[in-house]
C-alpha cells in the first residue's frame, strides 16, 4: 500500500518531467539545440497563471490557457531574437546564448515578482479514493494531461503535414528547404509548441508543489533534460518514458533511501543508462548507406 502510493506520487512527478521533456526533445530534435531556458519558461508560465488567478480572479482553466498563450508568444520571441540569428553559428555559441536567456528570464522574474516565494493555489483541489489509496486530483490531472499530450504529439508528428515537415527539418535542414519547407517557420512552430507545453507543466507543477520563485523552473528543467536524454533525446516516446521513470526513481529513492541523496541517485541512474545505451532507452541509430 505504502509502495503504491509512493509509486503514484512518482508517476505524477514523472508526468510533469515528461511534459517538460517533451518540449525539450521537440526543440532539440528539430532545432538541434539544447534550450536551457526551457525550464524558465515553466516558471514564467507559473507566474502568469498565479497572477491571473490571484489578481484577476480567473478560474484555473482560464489561467492555464492564458499562461499557454503568453509562453507560446515568449517562446517564439526568444527563438526569433536570440536563436535565429545564430542559426549558422557553432552549437557552443547557441548553448551559451540559451544559458544567457535562462538568466535573463530568472532575473526578469526577480525584478517583476520579487524574491519572496508566492504561494500558488492549485487549479484543482481535492482527492480521490481509489481502492483505498488517496490520490490527489491534481496528480490524476497531471497524469492524464501527460498521456494526452504524448498521444497528440505522436499523431501530430506522424500524420500531419507540418509534423512531418518537422521530422524532415530534424534530419536535414538543407534537403528540407529543397522540398520547399520553410525551415525558420518550422523551428518557430516547434518553439511555440514546446513553450505551450512548458506552461502546462508549470501550472501543473505549481499546483502540486505550490511554492513559486524565480528559480522554480531550473531544477525541474535540468531533470527533464535528463529525462529526455535518458529516454533518447529527439524521441517523443523516449521523453515520455524517461520522464515517468525519472519521477518514479526519484520518488522511490526519496522514500526508501535518502531524501538528500535522491537527486544524486537520479543522476547516477542516468549515467549508468548512458554507459549501457549511449543513445538513451529509445534513441535509435540509423545506419547510413551509400
Amino acid at each position, binding site marked *: 500500500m505504502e509502495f503504491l502510493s509512493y509509486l503514484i506520487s512518482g508517476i505524477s512527478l514523472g508526468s510533469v518531467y515528461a511534459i517538460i521533456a517533451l518540449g525539450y526533445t521537440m526543440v532539440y530534435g528539430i532545432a538541434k539545440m539544447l534550450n536551457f531556458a526551457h525550464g524558465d519558461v515553466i516558471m514564467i508560465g507559473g507566474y502568469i497563471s498565479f497572477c491571473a488567478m490571484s489578481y484577476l480572479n480567473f478560474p484555473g482553466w482560464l489561467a492555464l490557457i492564458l499562461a499557454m498563450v503568453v509562453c507560446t508568444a515568449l517562446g517564439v520571441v526568444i527563438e526569433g531574437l536570440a536563436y535565429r540569428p545564430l542559426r549558422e553559428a557553432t552549437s557552443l555559441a547557441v548553448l551559451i546564448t540559451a544559458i544567457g536567456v535562462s538568466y535573463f528570464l530568472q532575473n526578469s522574474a526577480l525584478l517583476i515578482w520579487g524574491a519572496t516565494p508566492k504561494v500558488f493555489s492549485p487549479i484543482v483541489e481535492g482527492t480521490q479514493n481509489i481502492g483505498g489509496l488517496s490520490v490527489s486530483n491534481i496528480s490524476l490531472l497531471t497524469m492524464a494531461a501527460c498521456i494526452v499530450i504524448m498521444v497528440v504529439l505522436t499523431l501530430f508528428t506522424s500524420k500531419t503535414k507540418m509534423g512531418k*515537415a518537422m521530422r524532415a527539418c530534424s534530419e536535414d535542414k*538543407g*534537403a528540407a*528547404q*529543397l*522540398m*520547399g519547407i520553410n525551415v525558420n517557420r518550422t523551428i518557430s512552430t516547434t518553439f511555440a509548441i514546446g513553450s505551450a507545453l512548458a506552461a502546462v507543466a508549470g501550472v501543473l507543477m505549481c499546483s502540486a508543489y505550490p511554492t513559486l520563485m524565480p528559480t522554480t523552473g531550473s531544477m525541474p528543467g535540468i531533470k527533464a533534460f535528463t529525462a529526455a536524454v535518458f529516454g533518447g533525446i529527439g524521441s517523443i516516446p523516449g521523453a515520455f518514458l524517461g520522464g515517468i521513470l525519472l519521477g518514479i526513481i526519484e520518488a522511490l529513492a526519496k522514500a526508501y533511501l535518502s531524501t538528500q541523496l535522491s537527486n544524486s541517485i537520479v543522476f547516477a541512474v542516468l549515467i549508468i543508462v548512458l554507459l549501457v545505451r549511449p543513445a538513451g532507452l529509445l534513441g535509435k541509430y540509423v545506419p547510413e*548507406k551509400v
Partner: protein
Amino acid sequence: MLKVNDINVYYGSIHAIKGVSFEVHQGEVVTLIGANGAGKSTILQTVSGLLRSKTGSVEFLGENLGNVAPHKIVAKGLAHVPEGRRVFLQMTVEENLEMGAFTRPGSEVDSGIADVYKRFPRLEERRRQIAGTLSGGEQQMLAMGRALMSKPQLLMLDEPSMGLAPLLVEQIFEIIKELHKAGTTILLVEQNAQMALSVADRGYVLETGKIVTTGTGAELLNDDAVKKAYLGA
C-alpha cells in the same frame, strides 16, 4: 528557361565559382561536367538559393532568384536532387514522397505518388519501409521521385550516378532519358562525363570554377581535350 549570368560564389575567402554563365532552354538536357572540386555542386546550390552569388544573376522563367528564399524557389518549379541524395533516412518512402509535394496542394499528393510509383515500381514495393533501409540505387530513385513530386519545370540532378554499381548507373540514365522524352527540362551535374554527354543536348566543361568549353553532347564527346581529361582516352 534558366539563365545564369556571371555568378561569383565564395566559401569564406575561397573564390569557388569565377564568373560562370550558362543557359538551359525548355525541354533540353544540359550537363555540367568537370572533376571533383570544379564547382559543379556549388553552381546548383547557388541556383536553388542555398548559396548566394556576390555578382551577376540567376534568372528562372524570366524572374531573378537573387533574393528569393530557397523554400520559395521550389514552388516556382525548380527541383534539386542534391549530391548524396539526402533522402530523409528516418522517414518512410511514402513520407519522403509526401515531403517532395510540400509545395503542392493536398489534392495532388496521391496522384503524384501514383505517378512516381509507375515510374519506379521498386519504390512502391518498399513504400512503408524507412528510407535508411533502402539500397543506394533505391535511395537515388527515391530522391528523384521525391523531386518529381513538386511537378518541376526544371529538374536539377547532382551526381545521380555517384557510388552506384555500373548496372544501376545505366538504369538511372535510362530514367533520365525517359524524363527527357516526357518533356522535363534537366540540368545534370556529373563526374561520369561519358554517360552525361551521351544523354545531353548540350554540355559545359567546368575547371576550377570556370567554364572552359561548351558544345553539344556529341561535340564534347569528340573533343580531344575533353577526351583526354575526362573520358580517359
